[in-house]
């Protein structure tokens, strides 16, 4: 299993369905993308994940900071 959005290979199981065995909720540890295993392929499978929503490590590192962290007040 790789992350559909950034293709990272480390994915955590965040929770499982209260009815056992129906679905899991997974999360990429790098881009934090979270999905349920029963969602459509366009949200869960790398090859079907839309290009416009994909993320690279550079996208994550250089994403704008909102809001910008202000300077620390001195004294």
């Amino acid at each position, binding site marked *: 299993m790789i992350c559909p959005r950034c293709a990272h290979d480390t994915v955590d199981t965040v929770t499982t369905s209260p009815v056992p065995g129906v679905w899991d909720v997974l*999360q990429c540890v790098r881009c*934090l993308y979270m999905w349920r295993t029963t969602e459509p392929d366009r949200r869960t499978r790398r090859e079907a994940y*839309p290009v416009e929503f994909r993320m690279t490590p550079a996208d994550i590192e250089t994403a704008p900071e909102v809001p910008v962290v*202000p300077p620390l007040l001195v004294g």
Partner: protein
Amino acid sequence: MPYDDLRSFLDTLDKESQLLRITEQVLPEPDLAAAANAAGRIGEGAPALYFDNVKGFTDARIAMNVHGSWRNHALALGLPPDTSVREQVEELARRWDAFPVVPERREDAPWRENTQLGPDIDLFKVLPLFRLNDGDGGFYLDKAAVVSRDPRDPDHFGKQNVGTYRIEVIGRDRLAFQPVPMHDVAQHLHAAEESGEDLPIAITLGNDPVITIVAGMPMGYDQSEYEMAGALRGAPAPIATAPLTGFDVPWGSEVVIEGVVESRKRQIEGPFGEFTGHYSGGRRMPTIRVDRVSYRTDPIFESLYLGMPWTEVDYLVGPNTCVPLLKQLRAEFPEVQAVNAMYTHGLAVIVSTKKRYGGFAKAVGMRAMTTPHGLGYVTQVIVVDEDVDPFDLPQVMWAMSAKVNPQDDVIIVPNLSVMALAPAADTSGITSKMIIDATTPVAPDDRGHFDTPVRDLPETPEWTERLRALIAAR
């Protein structure tokens, strides 16, 4: 009678046939969001949706589209369901004048029934979380009332803020959230981060319908949303003390999440399908560590779908954006008759006004842009005469088509502020803004040929009522 919690309002919607219970089993995705998306496409009388049979969950209860039609919005205010949009806005403006109404503190909040603390916190065990749009980064809390205090003045009741901000669930006890710099919570966070301190926060879900309306209302920084809720309800708002933060939170909430915004930290968040009908990009945003969750037994999870307008959020923030703009404009320009700021949270606004003298309408347009809300929104203002109803778009288009001389009546001001989500801004947060003066010129602005307008016949108002009565009696 005002509603003290979400459940009693859902009961009324049920009685008024404005709550649709979907009993057959649905998938959490894409069904829940697609159904709420569809509710926005079936017209102005759409019902709220209630799901309690969601695949894989044992006891999920999900309410959507609760404010998502003019009928439901009227019922939330205790008005007859067929109250017109303009009448709903006028009634809101009338009740606004009762502000402030001191809230009523109660000790027996139903969300005290259950608690999660520290390492036992698992939001997924409390809430049936799900995704809305294809490109969303995950599952969101998008209809909460978020409470925070000004760290520089924590005892000031009015500066305590109750606002709606989008919140992404990024872990069992972790959230990421978006404070737009124009909004009050961003000022609180700025002050906390300047001192290197965490900002305590309380997130309340499943609130009574008027708390949700005031939480999305662009009020003054030191005006209390609870005191406004009392004015709009016509009765004091019931509040209770949150156990961890000591903040004032709605008595009737389904779930109260408390924790801190972690100081000077940003983490990747988003995107999210926004009220602008476009996705926000992925940004590095503040994160919240959850320290305590309090919740009613069998909580109802309330969420709203938003995407390409109109969706529930447009009904929710439409009237409550019109009223503060109307009041703030009238404070200096009593000639202003009505304000329609219902398009994309007031990115475009229509104002009707009498004219004091030539050029006056353009001044009204500029003032709209410099109101507190206007600084982050109001990129386009259409100003129309006092006899044009800004809520009647065919009349507005008549004024635009008949009264505007583009060379003289369209004014573009470059490089003004706008909130970062505005998709048309080239540099995020900076945009040009436009005034279209669609009023009739008055002296000494002597232009055009407007001396022989056709007016409604004197008998027309009486006949309007007769026709309405005849139609209603059919």
